[in-house]
């Protein structure tokens, strides 16, 4: 039971790496830096594997396995320990984070090889690992918040890694601030939680929540409030509407960062948090509905934007947003395990997509515009094949990982017991549409990048395959995105849906709180229906692929092409529904105007300082008046004396009795 007692080593290792690289790396050769960075993360991956092995030897009573190390904050009745915990959910997350994280570290050694600030990059990356692991292993919300903000910081640093580019530092700032807005909600959620349960420890909170009655749909009780406030945080972190705006800009960061932080791990923190708080959500159907709707709408919304983007990374970014929407949807309909399942598979294929895209960019010397690519299939075969796998996976091609997880979500959406059947159908329809769109924009990307004639200047740019350090991770991830889904084959296909059963204990409490499935409900949503819907999904994906093939490969314009509607629509999509402009006009500018013109100049300088200086001036005024009495003329002085005498006598005689 070594690892179980020394849980802290798992996050600590990358931290050490970060510290070493950050403080000393400046003077070290690349090799040494690689060794430290990759070594520490690798070690913590190994540690995780060992942990998992030990984990299976735990009795159900021992789960969640909590180890408290030292008190972090002690004040009055508030106590937050530096305590780590392990349960099924944590295990999955740990595997994903450390595993994918490690691969991406390896990849980066190749990708960043000729960038400045090499040591900085890796120390940030390791720091990120530390915070991410803290996030998933925390045993109370306070500590979770540490990781939560910490990853935000690292994403800020890594997005702004190329700090000479204004756009990069802007994007970093935007990311941090938008996340802060989310955290604002998250903190309030924690406060309310503390007010309600008197603690922020998972154990206390969840047991407390479990004991409370389920709040009816539409009611806004304490739990609903908590759930919604936490969800505000989640929308920030997991780039849901309306706070998704930072993620696309985040693509300013180096591609491995996009892969690790903005695809595989950090952005899924929100989903993880919601899943972690499943008990609370399960007791607040209102919140559940909100989560489901937001998730679903986000998925569709982002997918539409993804259709019209030309920057290869931005396409992927929007697809990430959309996929995150799926996961939220899953949580929203109570299919937490499905959500986590998709989280896992997504981390495989999305990471792969980014890395592959990175390799493409690498090959084209930093070219990111799809319109200046094409015909790379033959030139960088490895990249092409791996990318193809990933694309198939995300588009939900049968037997690929994405297929199972996405299908699980669709099915759970349709058969959810949390909201009304009509609601479910609506959500399902939207989700399906999203699936179609996903297929379209992903294959658009694939075709534009790898097929057709090259649209770049072949004399200047001679394309070359990436180094091995980059290819190995690609291949591994490709394999994972192909087979990764088989941990979750649904019963309907004779599978055991292992992952769901594995995660079940983690969500047991939530399940028990979920509305009871009536018999006719169970009858209605039979395996048969599930298979039918599955077919529908496959069909939808196929349609999507076809559309993309017809439009972007064959290049045959549809009747729809060229109409005014289409033009406006595409501009609307290309400019991402003008959301950024909207925020700028509605939030940013007014606040700046308020602060500068009203508060600073008007209130501070005019009103307050004006008063202060005015008082001083008034004093001088009074002084000037008072000195006027000193005319220097003795007769006037005598007059004053007489005045005084008259006053005194009169007062005494008339006033004083």
């Amino acid at each position, binding site marked *: 039971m070594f690892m179980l007692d020394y849980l802290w080593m798992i996050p600590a290792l990358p931290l050490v790496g970060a510290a070493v690289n950050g403080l000393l790396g400046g003077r070290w050769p690349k090799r040494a830096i690689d060794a430290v960075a990759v070594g520490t993360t690798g070690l913590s991956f190994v540690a995780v594997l060992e942990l998992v092995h030990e984990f299976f030897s735990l009795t159900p009573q021992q789960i969640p396995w909590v180890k408290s190390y030292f008190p972090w904050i002690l004040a009055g009745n508030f106590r937050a320990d530096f305590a780590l915990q392990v349960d099924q959910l944590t295990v999955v997350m740990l595997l994903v984070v450390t595993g994918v994280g490690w691969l991406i570290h390896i990849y980066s050694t190749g990708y960043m090889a000729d960038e400045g600030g090499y040591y900085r990059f890796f120390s940030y990356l390791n720091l990120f690992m530390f915070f991410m692991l803290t996030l998933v292993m925390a045993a109370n919300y306070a500590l979770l918040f540490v990781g939560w903000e910490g990853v935000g910081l690292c994403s800020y640093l890594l997005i702004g890694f190329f700090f000479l580019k204004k756009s990069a530092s802007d994007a970093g700032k935007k990311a941090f601030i938008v996340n802060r807005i989310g955290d604002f909600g998250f903190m309030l959620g924690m406060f309310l939680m503390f007010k309600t349960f008197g603690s922020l420890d998972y154990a206390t909170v969840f047991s407390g929540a479990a004991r409370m009655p389920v709040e009816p749909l539409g009611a806004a009780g304490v739990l609903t409030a908590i759930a919604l406030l936490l969800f505000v945080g989640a929308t920030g972190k997991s780039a849901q509407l309306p706070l998704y705006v930072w993620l696309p800009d985040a693509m300013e960061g180096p591609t491995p960062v996009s892969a690790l932080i903005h695809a595989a791990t950090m952005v899924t923190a929100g989903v993880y948090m919601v899943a972690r708080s499943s008990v609370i959500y399960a007791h607040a159907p209102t919140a559940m509905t909100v989560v489901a709707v937001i998730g679903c709408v986000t998925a569709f919304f982002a997918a539409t934007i993804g259709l019209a983007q030309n920057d290869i990374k931005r396409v992927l970014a929007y697809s990430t947003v959309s996929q995150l929407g799926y996961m939220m949807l899953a949580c929203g309909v109570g299919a937490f395990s499905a959500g986590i399942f998709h989280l896992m598979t997504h981390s495989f294929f999305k990471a792969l997509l980014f890395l592959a895209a990175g390799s493409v960019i690498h090959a084209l010397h930093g070219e990111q515009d799809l319109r200046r690519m094409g015909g790379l299939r033959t030139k960088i075969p490895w990249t092409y094949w791996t990318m193809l796998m990933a694309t198939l996976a995300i588009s939900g091609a049968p037997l690929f990982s994405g297929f199972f997880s996405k299908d699980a979500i669709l099915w759970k959406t349709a058969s959810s017991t949390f909201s009304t059947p009509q609601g479910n159908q609506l959500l399902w329809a939207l989700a399906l549409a999203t699936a179609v769109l996903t297929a379209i924009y992903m294959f658009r990307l694939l075709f534009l990048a790898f097929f057709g004639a090259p649209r770049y200047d072949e004399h200047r740019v001679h394309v070359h395959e990436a180094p091995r350090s980059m290819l190995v991770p690609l291949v591994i991830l490709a394999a994972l995105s192909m087979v990764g889904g088989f941990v979750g084959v649904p019963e309907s296909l004779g599978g055991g849906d292992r992952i769901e059963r594995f995660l079940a204990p983690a969500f047991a409490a939530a399940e028990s709180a979920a509305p009871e499935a009536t018999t006719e409900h169970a009858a209605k949503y039979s395996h048969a229906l599930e298979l039918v819907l599955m077919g529908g999904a496959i069909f939808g994906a196929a349609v999507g692929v076809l559309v993309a093939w017809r439009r972007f490969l064959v290049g045959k314009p549809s009747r729809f092409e060229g109409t005014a509607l289409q033009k406006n629509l595409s501009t609307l999509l290309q400019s991402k529904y003008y959301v950024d402009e909207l925020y700028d006009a509605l939030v940013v500018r007014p606040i700046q105007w308020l602060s500068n013109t009203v508060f600073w100049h008007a209130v501070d300088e005019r009103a307050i300082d004006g008063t202060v200086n005015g008082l001083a001036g008034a004093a*001088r005024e009074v*002084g000037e008046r008072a000195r006027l*009495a000193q005319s220097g003329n003795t007769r006037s*002085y005598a007059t004053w004396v007489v005045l005084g005498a008259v006053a*005194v006598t009169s007062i*005494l005689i008339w*006033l004083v009795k």
Partner: protein
Amino acid sequence: MFPPIEDIYRLAPELVACLFGMLIMVVDPFLPRERKDISANLGLLGALASMAAIVLMARHPGAGMYGLLVVDKFSIFLHMIIFGAAALVILAADEYLKQEGILQGEFYALVLFATCGMGIMAGAAELMTAFVGLEISSISSYILACYRRAVLKSHESAMKYFLLGSFATAFFLYGVAMVYGATGTTFLAGIAASAGGAAGNQVLMKLGFAMLFVGMAFKIATAPFQIWTPDVYEGAPTPVTALLASGPKAAAFAVLLRIVFTAFGDAGGTWFWIVWGSAALTMIVGNFAAVVQSNVKRMLAYSSIAHAGYMLVAVAAAGAAAETDSAAGIAAVLFYLAAYALMKLGAFIVVSHLGGRGEQRLALDDFAGLSTRQPVTAACLMLYLLSLLGLPLTAGFLGKLYIFKAALDARLIWLVVIMAITSVVGAFYYLRVIWVMYFREAHEELTTAPVAPGVAAVMVVTAAGILVLFFFPGAVMNFAMQGAMALR
């Protein structure tokens, strides 16, 4: 027939002062020009001797000279202030007179005579005696004010002081007459005894008190009788200004307090509001008018008006508390008088030193960069100013503290508030001097004469006094308290 020897002892300080004064008058004419410092030393010696004589006086408490004069802790306390002030002024005057090249012997004699008069005022238990004392000090001050005979301003200040002064004295006399008419006596005790007779007498009493108040308020310089102060203080030779600001004020306060508490004590109600109003008005006028002054000497004159106002607050407090106990207020006045004498003397003496020949250097700008030219002098002046401002570590702070306390015990909230606000206004002009001294660079042609030993001594004594009064106020305050008790 001849008064008993104790009465001589009771008069010891005044007698000593007069003797030395006459001695100087006799000796001085025979001294060659360059040996005039002998008379200076004689003057100093006289002042010190009469201070020593205070001990002799203190050994024989009680009324003397057929009840015209009383020796009590109150009188002793004021004697110390008055004669101390005289000593300091004489100490510092030497340099001034030399640089102004004006005849010296008579100066010291006059200072001593003036002091003698003030001493009489402090101890007088009878109005006519007080009046004569007042006249002695006033007339000497008129002459002293006029001492720079080559300077128009000096005449002017003397003239204004003289005309208005005697004007006010006339009022005072009329008051004496009224009181005499109403009670048949001018002995304070007697007045207290026979006060409140027939209704008619009441009117006379009121008129009498009003007139007496006018006379004293004029000397103390409280609004609206403060009007002469700035001009006279500015025109008079600065050492004289120092004397005027400290000595006569103390003496006049002595008379006022005796009149108010010994003679009219039980008639508290009749005069309380007058003092109240005058105090408020004085603080406001003094402080605000000082804000706009650019001549440091004149600014200090206004500030001394303001301080008279503060002391009047304490008097009002004592008055409001009269029916039970007024000692706290009176003690506060006495303590403040002591502190005030120290800081005002110090300030004026330093200013007179900095004024240079012909008092040409009194504008605020002339103080620029003083901290670099004469650090110690600057530091001392700063100390005085801070004390006038009432910042801690200085006697001024404790003085204010006692006054606040007395006023609050007497529930004079509004007076306290006015005092608080106006003293913040005071910060304006005191700090301005400090920042000119410390923050402004000196413009080159400014050169200040080295500090003369006399001036240095004065600075040491006053500065030390200010600090000591803050850190060890116990003894002084006790004495003041007993003096206050003596009044009732």
